[in-house]
Every structure is written in C-alpha cells, then in structure tokens.
C-alpha cells in the first residue's frame, strides 16, 4: 500500500455534493434575465429622443371637453395640427389668438383639423381659458398624459403638424407668433 494514499472522500464527489441543485441555477438565471431585461427596457425608453419630422404618428384618440371623440385615423388625408397647451401656461395665452385666427382661415376648407390638447390642467380653468380667448377648435384633456408621452413633449406650448399621409411634418417648440406663421407651414402641405 502506498503511504501517500490517505483514505479520504473523493474531492470531486464532495464538490458534487456541495453544488446547488440545477433548478436553483435555472431560477436564478431566469430572475437575472428578467431583471436585466427590465433594466434594458427602462434605459431604452429613457434614451428615446423626441419624435422626429418624417416619423409616422400612431393613431390618437382624444375626448374633447364637450364629449366629442376625435380619432386621427378617421382624419387620414387631412392635415392635423396638435397643439399642447395649459391654462397655467403664459406663452400659451400669447399664441391662442394666432391659432384661433388660423383655424378660422382653414375650417371652411375642411382639409385641416386643429386639436388642442390640454396638458396636466384642471377642467374648470381650461374651459375658462378657452372661453376667455374665444377658442372654437376641438379641445380636450390629455388623460393620463398618454398623448404628451407619445410625443415626448418637453413643455407647453408645443405644436405638432401631421401631413396628409399621417407623418410628422413640423414641430414647433414654444408659441407661434402669428397666424401667417402657421399658414406658411400648413399651406405647402395642402398642395
């Protein structure tokens, strides 16, 4: 007998006994993958920039303050102007006259739809504001900020103009200064 051969338990066998069961490894792998996937989705979402000109705009549905439902899919072939505003926003007040004037110019033609999207506001103040500035184009609250999140707006006022094909044609950050400025953007889209 070899004296170096000390009787003991096989180390490989010992290691095998101490190893975690395979289902534990699988479960840990699934949990880790779920956690990383969740992290990746969050990062991807946070790094998404604002919508770009030329991007197709997904269907938007808005219920106005007077209960009318506006669906952009039903407006295909028309130019749509989406104006994000709020009653507490001072620059929004300054552009309301320009928007109303442009709306009155385009409304008879029926080829352009203006939609006001009231961003994080209270209904009584919003309605008072609409009345004060004589706004007649459809307006409604952005419930749950779903539409503003879709456009990833940075503040109010912001205006998005969608062309006849449903693609984003123009982005206005801040207020419009005149009706002519709005017309200079919409008129080429109608030709």
């Amino acid at each position, binding site marked *: 007998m070899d004296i170096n051969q000390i009787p003991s338990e096989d180390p490989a066998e010992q290691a095998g*006994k101490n190893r975690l069961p395979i289902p534990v490894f699988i*479960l840990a792998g699934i*949990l880790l993958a779920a956690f990383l996937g969740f992290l990746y989705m969050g990062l991807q979402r946070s790094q998404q920039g604002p919508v770009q000109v030329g991007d197709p705009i997904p269907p938007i549905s808005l219920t106005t303050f007077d209960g009318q439902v506006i669906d952009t899919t039903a407006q295909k072939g028309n130019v749509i102007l989406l104006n994000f505003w709020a009653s*507490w926003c001072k620059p929004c007040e300054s552009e309301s006259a320009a928007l109303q004037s442009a709306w009155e110019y385009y409304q008879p033609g029926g080829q352009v739809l203006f939609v006001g999207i009231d961003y994080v*506001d209270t209904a009584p103040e919003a309605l008072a504001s609409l009345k004060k500035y004589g706004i007649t184009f459809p307006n409604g609250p952005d419930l*749950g*900020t*779903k539409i503003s999140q879709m456009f990833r707006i940075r503040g109010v006022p912001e205006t998005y103009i969608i062309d006849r094909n449903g693609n984003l044609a123009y982005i206005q950050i801040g207020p419009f200064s005149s009706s002519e400025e709005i017309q200079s953007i919409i008129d080429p889209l109608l030709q």
Partner: protein
Amino acid sequence: MNKHKILRLFGLLAVLAGFVFTGTAQAQDQVPLVVTDDMVNQVASQLYCPVCENISLDVCPTQACEQWRSLIREKLEAGWSADQIKEYFAAQYGDRVLPQPPNRGLNRLVYILPRVMIIAGALLLAWIVMKLRARKPSSVPTEAAPQSSTEYLTRVEEELNKRKGE
C-alpha cells in the same frame, strides 16, 4: 291606563323619536363639509406636481399647483376620500403624481421581485445551513474512527519497518 295602552303609547313615541332622529341625520348629511387647509395639504402632500420635478403639491408654489390644491378642496367638499382623489389625479395626470408606483402592470415587478429575492435568499441560506450540519458528523470522530486510524497507523508502521529493513 291598561298595559296595552301604555305599550301603544311607547310604540308611538318610539316611532316619533325615530322620525325625529332620522330627520336630524338627514339634515346633518346636507350640511356642507367644512374643508380646512390642513385637510387639503394632508392630501396634497401625498401627491406630486406633474410638471415640476419631485415637489409635492402641498409645498409647490406655482399657479398650476394652486389650481390642483383647489381641485383637491373641491373633491374633499364633495365627500371624496384621499384614495379616491389620488386615483383621480393618477387617471388625469399619469402615475408620476403618485409617491409610489401603483401595484399594476409592469410596476408589479417592483413589489414582487424583492419578496421573491428575499424568499430565494432565505431558502438558499437554509440549504447551506442544512448542508453544513449534514457534513459535521463525518468530521467528528466516531467510535469506529480510532479503530480505522489505528489500523492505518499500524500499516504505516509496518511499511516503514519494511523500508528500514531494505
């Protein structure tokens, strides 16, 4: 006055008292609820301004927040509970107005994952402890062990003696 008459009289009085108290209760229901600033701020402190970063509605100085505090007051006057108001704000302005993510949709993971991790950790710890306990008896010398080691030592000595002889 006989017993029946007395009972009838008590019955009549009880019915009248019932009408009087019900009337009082109804009148109390109609009294408008007095909502103090403290009550408004108590609810506002549980909500966050949707347009300013990390500022609760009770301390937010903007005009918009003032409007939202008025809205809270209106809702409290209408008899809404704090939870109903919070739900209304979340539906109107998004979940970001809430101090904690609501327990629905993907947000459920925020509540489920830590519990799963704690349970998994506890199970792992229990498994390790059980393994360690199971290993201990083998390291403790048993009655048989001295015999085997004596036998082993005897063999070693024999081997050494053999080698010495060579």
